[in-house]
């Protein structure tokens, strides 16, 4: 069978790898449509032909479930990991906290905390370090984590809080230097998936969601820089 | 018969129009600049709306705003030669003709595009961009375009004023033939009395948007009171008479004016054909005795009916030649020295070369393309 899966932008690369392996294994076909979680949510409420949603947060899948648009309860398929990153291989030392405390010349890129879970996590991290007030005035904000990465990659912002998954997916010459933010410095970035009404009874969709928590799938997710769902371990 | 009633209401110009033009042959609209000639043509064409207009052509109502009747311009089958030519800038000169040809009335057969091209000598212009044409070339193409559309009424707004005399003379006979051979009535706006007297059968004198006077050309030209409007210098009369005989040796034609003979340069017409000639007042002299040894061919017996002495050097003498009026413009001094008085019998001297002549509609035309004045 065939399934249309809506995927939050930050998970695009991982989802492509997952879909390829899944199709290979099951013979089902998976069509991915990517976008920001907010956009995908709005589209689903307007009848978008998606069978499942892999969101970047937990709020919107739950909301879909609450208003009766879901075919099953949402579940967390991955937990994102935040990193401070610069394309300059020499910029970020092993101890990012000291580096931040010393101050960054220019603007620090983060995702918009109101829109993107990674942004919120970045804000929490800075707050935890007591640096939020200081950096608040010298941030550059992307609307999503992808834009944040580009702002940094372009060199316009010397460093930024991005997803670890992005650094791993980046071309080698862009890897630069990074500091993985300890998970304890911010609330976990849980990403939820949910089967939609339209996907109920769709073998391919249900199988793909199941694959996310299957060992194969978990391996791919981990390799992409996320912590897979707890049921995997 | 064209009837046109309207109330022109421009911010700076308003007029009550009530025109009835005979519309057989060529009707001249003559009047000072800015007195509404162009506006009258536009009303007739249906290009000027919102003025409570009534237009009918030979009983066919084209517009009656009171009754909500309006035949749109493109259904009136008129031709319009605009004062500003309005050639289509995206087409060549030939393209402009083709445009008209493709939309020509199918129920008329003439003139053909080839015919018009020949007549107006448009051949060398056909593939030219209209922007590159000279002023006169532009106007020739515009005339050609209007003709090629084979209208049943032709409206011409000073069509010849950009042309040199020679071109004018070449085109004039063709416009006459439009009327004579193709039964195409023409409303013709002009500032030139030459053109008017040469072409028009009927004249409307336009003043302030209204018709100050109208009538057959001879009548209007004869009216002394209209002198100032026609321009004194150009005033004159029109005489009509049948051809009596031809003199091939000297290429002269004799015309009967009343019981007398007017001898003039030849006009190709059979005896009996009625011909009209224009005699300008300034070309007429007066002799008290029969002259001799003079190159002036015509000395018509006439009786002075009135003498208008003007300010300045001149006087206008109105004479009666066997029932037809004739005007002479001479000096006051001559009036005094010759002791001219109303009632006196005199000779009216008219140079043959001063006679503007044309055939009357219905008669046969002269050789086309030959300026005949």
């Amino acid at each position: 069978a065939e399934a249309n899966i809506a995927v939050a932008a930050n998970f695009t690369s991982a989802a492509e790898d997952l879909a390829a392996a899944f199709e290979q294994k099951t013979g089902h076909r998976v069509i991915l449509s990517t976008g920001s979680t907010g956009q995908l949510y709005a589209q689903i409420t307007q009848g978008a032909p998606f069978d499942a949603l892999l969101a970047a947060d937990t709020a919107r899948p739950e909301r879909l479930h609450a208003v009766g648009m879901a075919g099953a309860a949402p579940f967390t398929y991955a937990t994102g990991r935040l990193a401070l990153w610069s394309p300059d291989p020499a910029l970020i030392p092993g101890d990012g906290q000291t580096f931040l405390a010393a101050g960054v010349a220019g603007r620090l890129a983060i995702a918009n905390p109101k829109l993107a879970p990674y942004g919120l996590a970045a804000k929490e991290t800075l707050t935890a370090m007591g640096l939020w007030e200081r950096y608040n005035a010298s941030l550059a904000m992307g609307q999503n984590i992808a834009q944040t990465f580009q702002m940094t990659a372009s060199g316009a912002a010397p460093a930024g809080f991005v997803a670890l998954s992005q650094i791993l997916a980046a071309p080698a010459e862009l890897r630069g230097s990074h500091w993985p933010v300890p998970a304890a410095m911010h609330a976990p970035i849980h990403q939820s998936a949910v089967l939609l009404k339209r996907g109920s009874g769709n073998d391919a969709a249900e199988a793909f969601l199941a694959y996310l928590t299957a060992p194969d799938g978990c391996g791919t997710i981990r390799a992409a820089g996320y912590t897979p769902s707890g049921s995997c371990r | 018969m064209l009837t046109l009633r309207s109330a022109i209401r421009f911010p700076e110009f308003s007029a009550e129009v009530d025109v009835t033009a005979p519309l057989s042959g060529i009707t001249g609209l003559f009047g000072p600049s800015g007195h509404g000639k162009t506006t009258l043509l536009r009303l007739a064409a249906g290009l000027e709306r919102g003025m409570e207009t009534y237009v009918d052509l030979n009983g066919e109502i084209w517009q009656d705003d009171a009754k909500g009747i309006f035949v749109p311009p493109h259904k009136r089958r008129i031709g319009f030669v605009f004062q500003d030519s309005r050639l289509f800038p995206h087409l060549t000169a030939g393209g402009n003709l083709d445009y008209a040809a493709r939309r020509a009335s199918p129920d008329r057969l003439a003139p053909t595009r080839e015919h018009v091209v020949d007549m107006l000598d448009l051949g060398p212009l056909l593939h030219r961009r209209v922007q590159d044409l000279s002023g006169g070339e532009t106007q020739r193409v515009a005339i050609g375009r209007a003709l090629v559309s084979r209208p049943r009424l032709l409206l011409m707004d000073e069509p010849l004023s950009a042309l040199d005399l020679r071109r004018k003379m070449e085109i004039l006979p063709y416009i006459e033939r439009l009327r004579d051979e193709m039964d195409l009535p023409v409303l013709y706006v002009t500032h030139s009395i030459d053109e008017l007297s040469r072409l028009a059968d009927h004249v409307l004198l336009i003043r302030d948007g209204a018709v100050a006077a109208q009538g057959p050309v001879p009548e209007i030209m004869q009216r002394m009171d209209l002198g100032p409007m026609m321009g004194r210098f150009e005033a004159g009369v029109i005489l009509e008479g049948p051809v009596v005989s031809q003199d091939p040796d000297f290429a002269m034609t004799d015309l009967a004016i009343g019981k007398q003979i007017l001898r003039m340069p030849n006009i190709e017409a059979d005896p009996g054909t009625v011909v009209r000639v224009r005699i300008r007042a300034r070309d007429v002299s007066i002799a008290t005795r029969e002259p001799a040894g003079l190159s002036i061919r015509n000395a018509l017996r006439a009786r002075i009916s009135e003498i208008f002495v003007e300010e300045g050097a001149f006087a206008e003498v109105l004479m009666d030649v066997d029932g037809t009026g004739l005007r002479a413009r001479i000096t006051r001094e001559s009036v005094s020295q010759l002791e001219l008085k109303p009632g006196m019998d005199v000779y009216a001297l008219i140079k043959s070369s001063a006679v503007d002549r044309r055939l009357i509609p219905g008669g046969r035309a002269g050789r086309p393309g030959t300026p005949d004045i």
Partner: protein
Amino acid sequence: MSDGDLSAILLTLQLAGATAIILVLLSTPLAWWLAHTGSRLRWVVEPVVALPLVLPPTVLGFYLLILLGPAGALGGAWVALTGDSLAFSFSGLLIASLVYSLPFAVQPLQTAFQAVGTKHMEAAATLGASPLDAFLTVASPIALRGYLTAFVLTFAHTVGEFGVVLMVGGNIPERTRVISIAIFEHVETLSYGEAHRLSLGLLVFSFLVLMAVTILHRRAPVRAG
């Protein structure tokens, strides 16, 4: 270039071509009316035409989505009529693009029509051309430059259009995934090489299309008939 990119390119050309052609046609009467009416209504209509521009594309897309969705006025009617959904379909994309690019077609045409004036239309009428005939054969060719501008702007804008298309179309491969979204995705997923290649290809291709349009127009300003 992947298969997906190729189908995105084809879809983009279809969408941009269809949008530009339809929009130029649809805008013509509106632009003509705006250029020549004496009515005060145009004081309202003229700014309204420009309004689709002032909303952020995704936001406009959001409202269009509501309109085109099965619950929306237009979308509902469409479903009732065809059984299909407008949202997330090519037709829906097309409608959205039409709305979004409307001002780029109307305004240049209006400028051009105003420059044409009425005198050539009058001349055409006296030669027996009906208003429509005269419009097609006189006013339009004289306004050709305006048509060219309208076409170029709407075509280029639709190619690059993004927010609206993404929202209304839903980025469904082979159905509503246009090239701008594809490039966007390549950038988002950090496939910069792919993104550069595709951007360059798009630029070169668009350049060629636009240049062809320009030269065609320059070559044909005066015709024989």
